[in-house]
């Protein structure tokens, strides 16, 4: 429980280079490898949980065109929730239940952060699937279930996955607040840097988080490219070749006019 100080005080005149090249920085109980493991494990758990919570329900509702207004309102309220405050609020509750500082409060708060945008992008993606394709499927005798599973979801998959990627990067960038709520992870170096008034630690920690966020984005983009069905890939290429249209445009809103997805509720 490293609440106030890190395990190891680093002399203030240590340079970034020295810090990064010191093996102790990497290994050991407070080392980067352990922190990285903590962070990756939590982020992965959050993304998987959010996807399970958001995508099936959203896709089903969108398929049936149900709860459009309710969904929009829930998404709006959901993305108004301040992640840090939610996590903090859950800490004493978790303690009272005997679950400790970690990881439930931060896990729930991050999940609440990512569910609304993922729900939204899935809903929009399924809803905007070319109506002609859906009607054609119905006309050929597809059951509603088959329409959803073998027409709507594949066609919407790119947009859904883009939403997932954006959410993942966001989670990685937000996860460091955990270090200020009684946890560890890569945020610990920033926390310790502030605590020891040591710029090297803070900047070093920032680099690590930025690198992980960047890597997450790149990896998921690569997976997205490889895993895409050929037809959808073609579709995608056509769409993105349109001037002024970027990935961003896809993850837009249900009920609101604007929708920079960047906006879609990043509350760290």
């Amino acid at each position, binding site marked *: *429980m490293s*609440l*106030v100080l890190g395990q190891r005080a680093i002399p203030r005149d240590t340079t970034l280079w020295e810090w990064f090249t010191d093996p102790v920085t990497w290994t050991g109980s407070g080392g980067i490898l352990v922190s990285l493991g903590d962070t990756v494990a939590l982020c992965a758990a959050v993304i998987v949980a959010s996807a399970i919570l958001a995508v099936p329900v959203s896709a089903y509702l969108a398929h049936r065109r149900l709860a459009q207004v309710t969904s929009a309102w829930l998404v*709006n*309220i959901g*993305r*108004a*929730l*301040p*992640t*840090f*405050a*939610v996590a*903090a*609020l859950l*800490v*004493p*509750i978790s*303690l*009272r239940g005997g679950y400790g*500082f970690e990881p439930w409060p931060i896990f729930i708060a991050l999940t609440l952060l990512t569910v609304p945008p993922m729900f939204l992008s899935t809903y929009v993606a399924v809803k905007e699937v070319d109506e002609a394709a859906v009607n054609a499927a119905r006309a050929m005798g597809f059951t509603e279930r088959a329409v959803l599973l073998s027409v709507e979801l594949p066609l919407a998959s790119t947009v859904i996955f883009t939403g997932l990627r954006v959410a993942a*990067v966001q989670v990685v*960038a*937000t996860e*460091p*607040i955990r*270090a*200020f*709520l*009684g946890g560890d992870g890569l*945020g610990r170096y*920033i*926390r310790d*840097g*502030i605590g020891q*008034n*040591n*710029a090297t630690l*803070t*900047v070093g*920690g*920032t680099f690590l*988080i*930025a690198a992980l*966020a960047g890597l997450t984005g790149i990896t998921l983009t690569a997976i997205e490219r490889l895993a895409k069905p050929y037809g959808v890939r073609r579709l995608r290429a056509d769409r993105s070749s349109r001037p*002024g249209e970027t990935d*961003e445009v896809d993850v837009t809103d249900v009920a*609101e*006019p*604007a*929708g*920079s997805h*960047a*906006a*879609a*509720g*990043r*509350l*760290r």
Partner: protein
Amino acid sequence: MILVTQRNPVLRWSYFGEQWDRIQAAIGEHLFLTLTPVAIGFILSAVLAGIGLRYRWTVGPITLFAAFLYTIPSVAFFGILRTTPLGLSIYTVLIPLTAFTILILVTNILDGFRAVPAPVREAADAMGLSPVRRLFTVEVPVAVPYMINGLRIATVTLVGLVAVAGIVGRGGLGNLIMEGIRRQFWTPLTIGALLSIVLAITLDLLFFLLGRWLTPWARTARS
């Protein structure tokens, strides 16, 4: 072993009465730290969007730069400025908070202007509205819903980030949260967290209502 006990419960209601002045000050600071960067950010974003609309090629670089600022983890941004000569001054918080609004606001303002239908623009020209008049009587009003939406998102985002600024001791309600964590005294933490959430939802609603009030035409649309 840290415990939530009867003497240290999740929330002790009497704290409100005892510490009301502090709570009030924290709410005030939280509001100030939220709305000031949103206002500054809106002005900066309007200028940047104006440049982007005037010189199309700048849109890419502007967005890229804004996205870069946006991806800096908030704790890192605060932490780094904390170790600079800015130290514990208000700017350590205001600068990152303002920076975080730019991406949201610029993209929404640009979306708003792009949403003005070409025929509407053409009709305005054809009726002899000067470019300045066209901007203020046609394009800006049509873009208002987008701007409001950007302001909504920027505002709720900042309510959350101001709370995070509690880690450098300049975070309004975030200060209460951090105090609770440090002293393992749950009442201020719970109050700070709850009020942050209430504040975010309230401001979101207020901006939503402002948008409805400013755009009566959007309300009545048949579609």
